[in-house]
């Protein structure tokens, strides 16, 4: 084997075993969205009824796309750019688009990781810093902003983000966020230091730990008072909601973004596989586990949100009880939560005028349950508030934030892989630069770019990136992917490839999906998405401490220059697709032959010497 080394070709890295590969793909697909987006969608779209459009979207859109990406990566054994260049030079732009999107997404995604780290670092204190308001400077009372809203909101908006009233006021760089960002990027770097060798070992922890924590939270959550309120609220199906087209759109987009297709990461991961590997089964496993995780995660999330609602309701009632006890000079603790209703009715009949004058709160459990939260609002506000009320808060907080961090970290692996593998495949860096240096440089450049998000207006920018980079460009890329494979590469060639890899041709279901159903679905989702977005001028929720009425977010319009940046963010990742196609067409028209796919030898498959596919009896599947 010494001859192999001397011939100068680097062996393509390989997974140590199948489990690593599956765990990496599952870790990439299962991310923060499974925990903080899916339960929210279930809640606002009528609980159990939402599962129907969700599962339909999974079967007809998610799984075919997933299978497609894993198959072409495994067959062509290159990252996203190399794969699309191999299929057709005109489609080379698709790979570049994937790479750009991966890079942009990894920037703001790691900022969220930095916030999670910040909260994690602060979970080792008693009392938890978001449970009490700090005193003002004269020590005469609490800080006004904190008193008006709540300690949890104050800690998030003021002490973590130090947020400005709108996106135009940028403020300065917050040093504490910078060092949290540095830690997040260092952790990503150390996991990637040896490429998939180190990453493959890291995923044993990062992909499995969230399930352990979710189970712990499930057990804890179900034993909390009020858990049943949350769960019944979540799962009570409201079948009427299925008539609303928004539901179908949101289900399709949720499945699509949840599976992390079109990033190029999945193609890169499967390119490190052996050639003959049952990618159909892998795709089914990854897709189903991803959806199952979403469902599994929504149970503890909603038990805890139900607990939070019940606690808030009880606190509201206790305030009323105190008001009534003090006013009517009733003995202490005569009026309790259990006999509140009876006693209140008695008092109301006896002294209706006095009751009317008292500042009694209107306590309604449904209002508290209706407070839906998703995204950072769920993790950093709703959940942290719930954790304060649980006995042993520090333990739960630490567990929760480690879980969020490992969920996000395993997704970051996919994003970074989507940036690194094309760099290696395109041979953009000379051979004498070791891989660690390239990885380090990518991390450093991303860190420098994500310093934008550590400005005081950083949260607004994360929202901009999240809503616009991580949405429209991906839909476009996925559409071109599926059309490229089904029509440019040809369904016949693709079936042959799959037969070579798995030993059996894809069934009629897959072919129908790839050729007709999924492209149509993607096109429909894209058009509907654009229409919905274009209907209203984009707005964003801003946190303004000096505005009345406070608390809450005020909705502001994006200023023009931000709107221009939004358009850029949607267009720039997608622009390589037509651009590269145009360039290649022009150079082909000029008679240059160097761009043909055959001239770049692919060291891993020599098409001139295609081995006849082995008989299916070799396959154990």
């Amino acid at each position: 084997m010494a001859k192999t080394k001397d011939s100068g070709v680097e062996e393509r890295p390989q997974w140590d075993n199948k489990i690593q590969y599956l765990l990496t793909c599952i870790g990439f697909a299962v991310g923060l969205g499974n925990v903080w987006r899916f339960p929210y969608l279930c809640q606002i779209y009528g609980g159990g009824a939402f599962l129907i459009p969700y599962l339909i979207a999974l079967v007809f859109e998610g799984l075919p796309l997933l299978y497609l990406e894993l198959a072409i990566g495994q067959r062509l054994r290159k990252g996203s750019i190399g794969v699309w260049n191999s299929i057709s030079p005109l489609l080379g732009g698709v790979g570049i688009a994937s790479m750009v999107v991966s890079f942009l997404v990894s920037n703001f995604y790691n900022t969220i990781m930095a916030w999670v780290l910040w909260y994690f670092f602060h979970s080792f204190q008693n009392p938890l810093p978001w449970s009490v308001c700090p005193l003002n400077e004269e020590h005469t009372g609490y800080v006004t902003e904190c008193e008006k809203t709540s300690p949890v909101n104050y800690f998030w908006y003021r002490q973590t983000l130090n947020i400005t009233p709108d996106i135009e006021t940028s403020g300065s760089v917050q040093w504490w966020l910078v060092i949290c960002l540095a830690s997040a990027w260092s952790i990503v770097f150390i996991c990637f230091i040896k490429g998939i060798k180190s990453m493959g070992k890291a995923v044993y922890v990062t992909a499995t730990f969230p399930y352990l924590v979710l189970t712990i939270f499930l057990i804890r959550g179900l034993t909390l008072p009020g858990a049943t309120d949350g769960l019944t609220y979540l799962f009570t199906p409201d079948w009427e909601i299925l008539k609303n087209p928004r539901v179908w759109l949101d289900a399709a987009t949720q499945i699509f973004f949840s599976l992390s297709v079109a990033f190029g990461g999945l193609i890169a991961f499967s390119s490190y596989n052996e050639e003959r590997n049952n990618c159909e089964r892998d795709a089914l496993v990854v897709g189903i586990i991803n959806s199952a995780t979403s469902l599994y995660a929504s149970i503890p999330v909603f038990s805890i949100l139900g607990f939070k609602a019940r606690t808030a309701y009880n606190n509201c009632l206790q305030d009323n009880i105190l008001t009534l006890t003090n006013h009517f000079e009733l003995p202490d603790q005569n009026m309790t939560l259990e006999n509140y209703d009876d006693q209140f009715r008695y008092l109301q009949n006896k002294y209706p005028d006095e009751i009317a004058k008292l500042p009694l709160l209107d306590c309604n459990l449904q209002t508290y349950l209706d407070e839906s939260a998703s995204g950072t609002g769920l993790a950093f506000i709703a959940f942290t508030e719930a954790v304060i009320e649980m006995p042993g808060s520090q333990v739960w907080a630490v567990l929760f934030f480690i879980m969020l961090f490992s969920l996000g970290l395993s997704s970051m692996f996919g994003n970074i892989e989507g940036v690194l593998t094309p760099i290696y495949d395109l041979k953009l860096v000379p051979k004498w630069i070791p891989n660690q240096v390239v990885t380090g440089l990518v991390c450093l450049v991303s860190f420098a770019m994500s310093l934008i998000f550590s400005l005081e207006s950083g949260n607004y920018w994360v929202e901009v990136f999240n809503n616009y980079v991580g949405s429209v460009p991906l839909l476009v890329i996925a559409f071109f992917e599926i059309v490229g494979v089904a029509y440019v590469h040809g369904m016949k060639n693709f079936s042959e490839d799959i037969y070579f890899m798995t030993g059996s041709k894809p069934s009629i279901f897959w072919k129908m999906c790839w050729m007709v159903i999924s492209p149509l679905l993607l096109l429909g989702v894209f058009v509907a998405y654009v229409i919905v977005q274009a209907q209203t001028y984009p707005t964003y929720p801003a946190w303004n401490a000096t505005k009345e009425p406070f608390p809450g977010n005020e909705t502001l319009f994006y200023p023009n220059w931000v709107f221009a940046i939004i358009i850029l963010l949607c267009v720039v990742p997608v622009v390589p697709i037509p651009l590269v196609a145009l360039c290649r067409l022009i150079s082909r028209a000029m008679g240059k032959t160097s761009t043909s796919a055959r001239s770049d030898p692919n060291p891993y498959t020599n098409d001139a010497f295609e081995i006849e596919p082995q008989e299916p009896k070799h396959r154990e599947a």
Partner: protein
Amino acid sequence: MLEKVFLLICLSSALAEQLCKPDAAEGYKVRLSIKTALDDQAYMWDDNEMFLFRSTVAYAMRRQLPGQQFSVPNIVVCNETARVSFWFVVMSPDMGSLIPKQQVEKAVRMSRGRINSAFMLTDHTLEFIGIAPTLASPYTPDTPPWLIVFGVVMGVVVAGIIFLVGSSVVQKKRKKKQKSTDNNAEVNEEHSAVNEGVYNMSFTDEERITRI
């Protein structure tokens, strides 16, 4: 003589009772929530507890106005309710005049902790309506705890990076040394086979059967 003393006492107590009433100008309302604070270990509020309260307030007045010998009869209580709430006013030691509100407030503020602990209550469960509870200043350690955790995590990560990078550098050096000794041994054999070009994997005869 004795009658005069009796008259004075009756008059003064009558006067005192007149002075102590709800919304009295120099009086404070006190509210206790014993059951809320102590749950199972709550004690019953009776005359003995009231005596203790009056004596603690007298103690507080003595501390505030040194030299003046306040005692239990100087603290006049009225309008006791089942809530456990009542009004009280403080009279001067000679039972002649009322002590102004501000003095009472200062006295209570100064000895609030002692009064609270006499009843095993807190600022929120033993309320003097009108005297705001003192806010406990939060414990601020010298180094914020989060920086300590950050330091630990980053220390581990940086140590790991240095170790991994260092070990791969050392490995490369070892490989180079081995290669040079290997080359010295095989230099005669491999003059043409080295530059084969791209290794054509189609001609490997490994049976790639997936293990699952």
